[in-house]
């Protein structure tokens, strides 16, 4: 990653160490994760030691140091979701995708994460899929959500292929 891709994020924030978390938030949002190169660039541009950037990036849950999958499935494990069975949802993804929360499938299609509360407690259990909220999720509902995103991806690939042939 060269400096110019981070330029819009760093604009107006250079040499301001206190902007570190805000800058990392934007890098995470735009690039999906925080790469080693991004950390080095941010360190240099804000005037913060690289080790401090790494410390902050690894302390906060909002930041991922590895690229995430195309579909990010976030299971809320807040108290209200927990008492309504969000642990069943973790079992569901473990069985269906063969990964644990925090991991990404080998094909790069799915990342599963847990969050301590998304604040939609009355609708629990809640699963956020790529930013959109699903409420009262059961293992069966989650299975279909996963199958559907897999299906769409497959269809997209098929469409892309047909277009190429044409």
């Amino acid at each position, binding site marked *: 990653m060269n400096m110019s891709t981070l330029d819009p994020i760093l604009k107006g924030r250079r040499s301001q160490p206190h902007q570190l978390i805000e800058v*990392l938030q934007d890098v995470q949002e735009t690039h999906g994760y925080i790469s080693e190169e991004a950390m080095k660039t941010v360190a240099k541009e804000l005037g913060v030691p690289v080790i401090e950037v790494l*410390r902050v990036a690894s302390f906060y849950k*909002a930041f991922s140091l590895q690229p995430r999958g195309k579909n990010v499935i976030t299971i809320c494990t807040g*108290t*209200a979701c927990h*008492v*309504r*069975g969000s642990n069943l949802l973790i079992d569901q993804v473990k069985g269906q995708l063969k990964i644990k929360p925090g991991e990404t499938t080998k094909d790069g299609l799915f990342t599963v994460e847990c969050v301590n509360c998304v604040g939609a407690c009355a609708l629990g259990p809640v699963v956020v899929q790529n930013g959109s909220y699903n409420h009262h999720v059961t293992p069966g509902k989650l299975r279909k959500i996963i199958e559907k995103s897999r299906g769409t991806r497959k269809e997209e690939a098929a469409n892309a292929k047909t277009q190429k042939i044409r």
Partner: protein
Amino acid sequence: MPRLRKSGELKALQRELQEKNRNFRSTIVICGGTGCQASKSPEVIAAIRKEIARQGLDKDILVRSTGCHGFCEQGPIMVFEPGNLFYCHVSPEDAAAIVEKTVIKGEIIEELLYTDPVSGLKVAKEEDIPFYSSQDRFLLSYSKKVDPCSIEDYIAIGGYSAIERALSEIDPETVISEISAAGLRGRGGAGFPTGRKWAEAREVPGDEKYVICNADEGDPGAYMDRCLLEANPHLVLEGMMIGAWAVGASQGYIYVRKEYPLAVKHARIAVQQAREMGLLGENILGSSFSFDVEIARGGGAFVCGESTALMASIEGKVGEPRPKDVHTVKEGLWNKPTVLNNVETWANVPSIIMNGSSWFASKGTKGSKGTKIFALTGQVKNTGLVEVAMGTTLRSIVFDIGGGPKNGKAIKAVQTGGPSGGCLPVSKFDQPVDFDSLTDAGSMMGSGGMVVMDEGTCMVDVAKYFLSFLQDESCGKCVPCRIGVDRMLEIVTDITEGRGRPEQLSLLKELAETVSETSLCGLGKTASNPVLSTLRYFQEEYAAHVNHKSCPAGVCKALINYTIRPEKCSGCGLCLKACPHEAITGEKKKAHYIKPQECMKCGICVSECKFEAITVN
């Protein structure tokens, strides 16, 4: 938007906006909070707007998209003003019928009315719904009246009049004595008197002071602050402005969780609008007061709800707390005097200035004044945001407002105060809810999370849940919290997995007391509450796990087995299809069978089975 240069201009604008609103015959209020958005409310709002325009009614009927109404489970929610006709579970396909029948002909569509789960009767008006009628809604009542993205809406209901009054009529000392006289205490959980905090910050010499709004609502099971900030960001902003004026601060920060994207968006829009109108910036409303606000997004660390950790995070550092031998009102953000209050505390400020301290103090108990918002969730019929006067009993909240148990199982406990609070049994349900009485009972009011648990909830598992939460969230700075929570979790895990020994119970208690006495910050000091309160009130559940290796609630996996009762199984194959671990076999239309070696005891089959054929032993 006009720029307001002196105080009279705000009043003129307010009159103009009210006049404009009077041109509308009625208003359709549609909830666009996070909860209703999950149930497709943006599509409903778009469909209604389209239909109103198609019928040529856009000059007569105002469609207002608002923040959360608090009854998320019924979403999307729609209310007609005047009259307060209440529709729930509205879908975009209903739009044409709603405009045709209800808006034009004034007819009520029965299917969209709310059905009270207790009486089974349909209810037409919002104020007749038991969930709402048993509440004392003040802060939440604004949510219906404003579009959170419209500063005009807020000004039209009298918004920013309190800061105007403070700037033109009341000196900072009087503002502080009003807040003190009102008896306002911090809504974040600690309950520190707000007026005293402000007075201390004002006394510290220096020109550079800060005010912070703590919207890092990390308690799982609590979302009052999300709703307030999402639904009425200008109210919070106005509270902060009054606080800044009182203590002499010129810069403020709203530290809001990244997990609340809508709250971040609305807060940003509000700050931008206030700047454009000159309500933030230099010489606000022609006075000597200058103030601006920045939004800082939290990075998803529970410990950042603690004031010193939060301030470190705003400074761009790792969110670790520091000892509080010097208070943050003296040395806070960048070592300058700083006043930190949470969202709900700030939101209470403008009305105290407008209505006076005695108005505020007329509600509540001796030591806890005003109303408090709670997030009522878990195994009750009505879940959502509940605002009641301080001192209302747990019983009234759970049974009158919440409507009692959800799944026919008896209610066993209420968890209050999140990971810092505890579980209170039904025998304590007559406790008035305020800052002091819940602490006496071994829990705490906290910021307002209230999770109802029934017989299907294992209290040892609840203790384990909070310990693993705290283990994950402990910043690791001090030994008692970092290692103490680890060891407690080990013991509780042993108990839930059938390896518990009787002597571990006293060790657990001793450890819990040590952690709470010796930890550095509030997170560690209260980390033992879930363990201590469950040990205190649910001793027999611990004993069943330790002595009989059984989990009465049927939750702890190591102590239970799933079996299919052949006489009840229809052989439909639903469980076989649902089992993610391929642990179920069977032929179609014949009784199925669970392979014990492969069963991970996740319970997914139980939730899928329509014939109640799968039992937990």
